[in-house]
């Protein structure tokens, strides 16, 4: 059940009405939201609802054991076991096949060919997201940054809540558990902001991302050798716009849906292509993941506390693992290496020039954007060979065939939205919140009608569902 479908709209309206009718009893409301979330998840594969429940029970039990332990050594042991158990679940479902294949190849190179047990493991949707959420809960309880959940129900809802379940944002326990403590209060600001985010997300996903994918990105990345430099360059820029519009649309809709149910999620994107450095890019792109990697990987590795070279090594390790988190393929590792390497270069450069500004901001934005685009080639290409074909094709000047004024407008429009005022949707919501409900209802209906008129038939799944 994808967000931009009629089936989801009907599901959401039902959840909205029932959940607010249960506003006098918070426990029942949470239980209903949990059941609704499981129903939502079961639409992909009902068998994995059990995994979701098992993962929540595991994290709840580990957190409870940490709280009850009075000796630091034992607390450390529990948190270690909790993190290891979460990573084992993720590793089995996501990386088992990948690592077995690598092992088979490696053994074959030494002339020792063996048939290792290769299982066809189905990847549960959203496993990377809810596993990371579980890890953050256990570690935060250990660090004392968040109080343990009042009940198992809260932990289950924290990990299963349907707006963020399949593709984030990674909402931490410290953000959501306090909101579960009582029936949330809906305000006009929240409702208007939520509705606008849903409409804006619909537009970005179903119009911009879908059109660019079908008209330019998919054909070019499928067979780069059939296209010239203009088509390939346009496809790379188009993919930069597509992945932003696709993923930020999901986050926007998730935040909007949660807001209509009375819960507040953190922002996940902040006009990332405006970043003038790679470090700034990661402060604006998939913020919930980058802050997760910072707090639970980079900082425990030592962060920047042990000097420049150590911080460079730590950022490299963090980005490599961040790349691997996206998918079990060497192209993702290379993507992480590119981002890590670029940040290392930036750090060394900053250490040399100190506080002097050697590159104007506009040039920094341009360079950062193109490094990011280079990374998107690795990210999108199925294999290294195809990625190399894309790069080679950038030097092959032929007549273009896929670039049209329409596609160009979508690419320029997708990039131009980064230069809107930084809090444009919030600003509009602030103005519209005083409108009478029929007026706002007609405006929202008309906006959705406009999107419906522009969207192509059918909706492709969100890119980040596969992660």
């Amino acid at each position, binding site marked *: 059940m994808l967000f931009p479908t009629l*089936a989801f709209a009907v599901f959401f309206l039902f959840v909205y009405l029932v959940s607010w009718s249960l506003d006098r009893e918070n426990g029942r409301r949470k239980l209903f939201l949990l059941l609704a979330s499981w129903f939502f998840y079961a639409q992909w594969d009902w068998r994995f609802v059990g995994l979701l429940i098992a993962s929540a029970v595991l994290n709840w039990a580990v957190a409870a054991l940490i709280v009850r332990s009075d000796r630091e050594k034992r607390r450390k042991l529990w948190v270690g076991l909790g993190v290891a158990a979460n990573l084992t679940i993720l590793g089995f479902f996501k990386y088992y096949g990948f690592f077995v294949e690598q092992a088979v190849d490696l053994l074959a190179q030494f002339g020792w060919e063996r048939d290792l047990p290769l299982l066809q493991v189905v990847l549960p949707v959203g496993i990377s997201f809810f596993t990371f959420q579980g890890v953050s809960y256990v570690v935060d309880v250990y660090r004392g940054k968040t109080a343990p959940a009042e009940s198992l129900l809260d932990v289950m809802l924290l990990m299963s809540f349907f707006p963020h379940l399949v593709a984030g944002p990674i909402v931490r326990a410290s953000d959501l558990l306090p909101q579960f403590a009582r029936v949330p*209060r*809906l305000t006009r600001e929240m*409702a208007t902001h939520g509705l606008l985010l849903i409409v804006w997300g619909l537009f970005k996903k179903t119009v911009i991302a879908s059109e660019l994918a079908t008209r330019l990105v998919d054909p070019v990345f499928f067979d780069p050798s059939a296209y010239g430099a203009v088509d390939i360059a346009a496809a790379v820029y188009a993919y930069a716009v597509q992945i932003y519009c696709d993923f930020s649309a999901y986050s926007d809709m998730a935040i909007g849906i949660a807001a209509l149910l009375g819960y507040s999620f953190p922002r996940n994107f902040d006009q990332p292509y405006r970043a003038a450095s790679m470090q700034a890019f990661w402060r604006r792109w998939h913020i919930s993941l980058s802050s997760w990697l910072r707090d639970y990987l980079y900082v425990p590795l030592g962060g920047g506390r042990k000097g420049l070279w150590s911080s460079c090594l730590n950022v490299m390790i963090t980005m490599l693992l961040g790349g691997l988190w996206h998918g079990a393929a060497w192209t993702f590792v290379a993507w992480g290496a590119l981002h890590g390497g670029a940040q290392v270069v930036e750090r060394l450069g900053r250490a040399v020039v100190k506080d002097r500004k050697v590159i104007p901001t506009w040039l920094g934005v341009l360079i950062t954007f193109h490094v990011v685009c280079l990374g998107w080639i690795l990210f999108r290409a199925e294999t290294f060979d195809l990625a190399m074909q894309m790069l080679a094709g950038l030097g092959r000047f032929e007549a273009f065939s896929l670039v049209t004024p329409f596609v160009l407008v979508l690419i320029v429009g997708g990039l131009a939205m980064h230069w809107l005022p930084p809090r444009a949707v919030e600003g509009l919501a602030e103005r519209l919140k005083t409108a009478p*409900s029929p007026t706002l209802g007609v405006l929202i*209906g008309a906006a959705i009608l406009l999107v419906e008129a522009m969207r192509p038939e059918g909706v492709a799944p969100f890119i980040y569902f596969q992660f």
Partner: protein
Amino acid sequence: MSDPTDPIDPFPTQAHPPVSPFPPLDEPAAGDPPSDWIGGADAHDLPTRENALIALGRFAFPPAPALDEEGEASRARRWTSQTLFVACAFLLVFNAGSVQNWARQQPPGWAQSTIDRLATVWIEQLTLLGADQPIQGLREVWHEAQATRFDGRRSAA
């Protein structure tokens, strides 16, 4: 050089001040009435003349007392629900085709065929009223934009 007795001379040379044309009164003046000046007041706070219609409206429909937090939340929920209802009704009228499309993509069954038939009748009736025109018009414009090429031709798509 001005006359040294001139009172507007900025640098008077005469040691004694000039004789004032307004000598003091022999009898002391009556004390000033008590001031009604409010130090913390702003001129914008002063009452202005209210529109008679607004005053009448306020008299006829006195504003409700200020709500507590629970009352505010309840009102916001009602407002949001009304907004959603209006948006859904708007889309049911002007985008009725999406229900039929959705029904036709579902596995066949009693519910699917019922929804499909209801949607078909609904669409037919609304088409008679011209409710499908806005989305058709928008689609045509959009498809024209999609078909434009750089050389001025139009693609078949």
